[in-house]
């Protein structure tokens, strides 16, 4: 028997386990998945937890439930990947040899990377909503909110779901308005970027919405430290933003096992071919989801599209065939904007988010880069699709892994020159 080993049973690893058990010859290949944590979190739901729109049971289920029976599930912490020996060493001392390794170890928040972030204000006045514990404790802080200066902040890019901090800000504006606290709250959005978002056309649209909602934007803010005594964040060039409540997105990093194994870049993300998903370090290692260093969004939709390309390439690799350079950076993200409305973005490596309809030209039902109620219903429906369709690697009719330009209104300057990409 040959061994196909998947590290990580999060969104990407679980989808790969489900894809491959249907496609790989199980008489020849033994598939194993290793993960140290028992709970699978629906991470997009963390956005709704602080506002009481979702509760724990909407976003947490046991990981094992989503791993097919034909796949062996190993609950253990990985100590190191020994790429040159084709084996993984677990913290319990066990060695797992592999013929093919898929790294799906994700990204996590690293608040310790910012001086002072974990000091006295942490989880008192300073919260994150990228972890279950953070989102749950933020909910309690918001319950007691009487007004003041609420600062939403991004530490450093890249982060998982780059639109989530904006969504949080829009939802906070709505939630505060409903509670009669908006007049008593100064809402501030602080970003290291030069605008509201990473892509220019969407940045203009979303920047305009921030203005409309009277949300103050502080851009080009590179955080140096959190001053928990004076309750302010301080940038490297000594700009200061005071807060009564700081909702920050800490630096996101790949798993420490990547660093221990010498397989990562400066943020512990694994250098990966952006079209085939093969690791640059070794031919028999592949990488998927947030663990890669690809210039694509770190998002569940991206992992889903990647899983379709990667399962094809795993089969090619097994047969000794050339890999397909078929991943185009496709991402598809809903942006909650409050008041029961949402935006939808659909984009890839070459084309930034533009207006249009999705997935059907002229029909939709979703509107691209435009607020609508249908988009919001789509976002809510997505939770059930995630648990019941995506994780199980069932097909999503009409939505292919390659981004379609049909239905999109593409301005002449929206496509970057190939040479610059």
């Amino acid at each position, binding site marked *: 028997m040959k061994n196909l080993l998947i590290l990580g049973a999060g969104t990407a690893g679980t989808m790969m386990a489900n894809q491959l058990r249907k496609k790989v010859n199980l008489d020849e290949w033994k598939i194993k998945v290793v993960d140290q944590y028992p709970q699978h979190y629906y991470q997009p739901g963390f956005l709704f937890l602080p506002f009481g729109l979702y509760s724990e049971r909407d976003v947490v289920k046991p990981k094992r439930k989503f791993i097919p029976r034909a796949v062996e599930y190993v609950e253990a912490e990985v100590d190191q990947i020994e790429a040159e020996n084709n084996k993984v060493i677990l913290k319990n001392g066990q060695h797992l040899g592999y013929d093919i390794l898929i790294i799906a170890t994700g990204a996590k928040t690293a608040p310790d990377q910012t001086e002072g972030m974990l000091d006295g204000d942490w989880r008192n006045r300073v919260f994150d909503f990228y972890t279950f514990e953070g989102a749950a404790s933020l909910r309690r802080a918001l319950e007691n909110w009487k007004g003041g200066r609420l600062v939403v902040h991004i530490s*450093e*890019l*890249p982060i998982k779901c*780059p639109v989530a901090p904006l969504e949080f800000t829009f939802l906070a504006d709505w939630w505060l308005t409903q509670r009669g606290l908006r007049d008593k709250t100064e809402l501030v959005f602080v970003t*290291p*970027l030069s605008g509201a978002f*990473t892509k220019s056309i969407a940045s203009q649209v979303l920047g305009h919405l921030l203005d409309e909602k009277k949300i103050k934007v502080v851009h*080009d803010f*590179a955080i*140096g430290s959190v001053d928990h005594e004076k309750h302010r964040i301080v940038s*490297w*060039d000594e700009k200061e933003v005071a807060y009564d409540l700081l909702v920050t997105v800490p630096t996101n990093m790949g798993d420490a096992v990547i660093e221990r194994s010498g397989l990562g*870049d*400066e*943020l512990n993300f694994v250098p990966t071919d952006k079209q085939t998903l093969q690791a640059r370090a070794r031919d028999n290692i592949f990488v998927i989801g947030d663990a890669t260093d690809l*210039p*694509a*969004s*770190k998002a569940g939709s991206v992992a889903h599209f990647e899983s379709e390309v990667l399962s094809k390439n795993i089969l090619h690799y097994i047969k000794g065939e050339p890999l397909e350079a078929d991943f185009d950076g496709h991402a598809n993200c809903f942006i909650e904007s409050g008041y029961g409305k949402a935006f939808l973005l659909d984009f890839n490596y070459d084309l930034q988010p533009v207006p249009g309809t999705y997935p059907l030209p002229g029909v939709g039902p979703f509107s691209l880069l435009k607020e609508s109620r249908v988009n919001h219903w789509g976002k809510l429906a997505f939770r059930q699709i995630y648990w019941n369709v995506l994780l199980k690697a069932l097909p999503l009719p009409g939505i292919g892994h390659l981004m379609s330009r049909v239905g999109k209104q593409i301005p002449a300057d929206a496509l970057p020159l190939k040479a*610059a990409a």
Partner: protein
Amino acid sequence: MPQKQINGVTIDVNEEGYLTNHSQWNRDLAAALAQEAGITLTDAHWKVIEFIDKDFKEKGVVPGMRRMNKVGGIPTKDLYALFPEGPIKKAAKIAGYPKPVSCV
């Protein structure tokens, strides 16, 4: 594509003044571009520019702050002292590379 005259030569730039043809870059040009930004290049500046140059040739992108720290061994405080207000953007311009963008 716009062009600009600097230091007695003509260079190809984009609308924000970033060099679009790296083969036109040399150390004299770097000094002139730095002067435009109000910076007189010292050895410490050159250490940053040379790291960007080496890293860009290897990776095809301008390194971010964290990479400058961890791989280049240049502390963020120093970067801000050398290239005030947006050190990466300024240093990339002087080094003759594109404006760094967070593309994700």
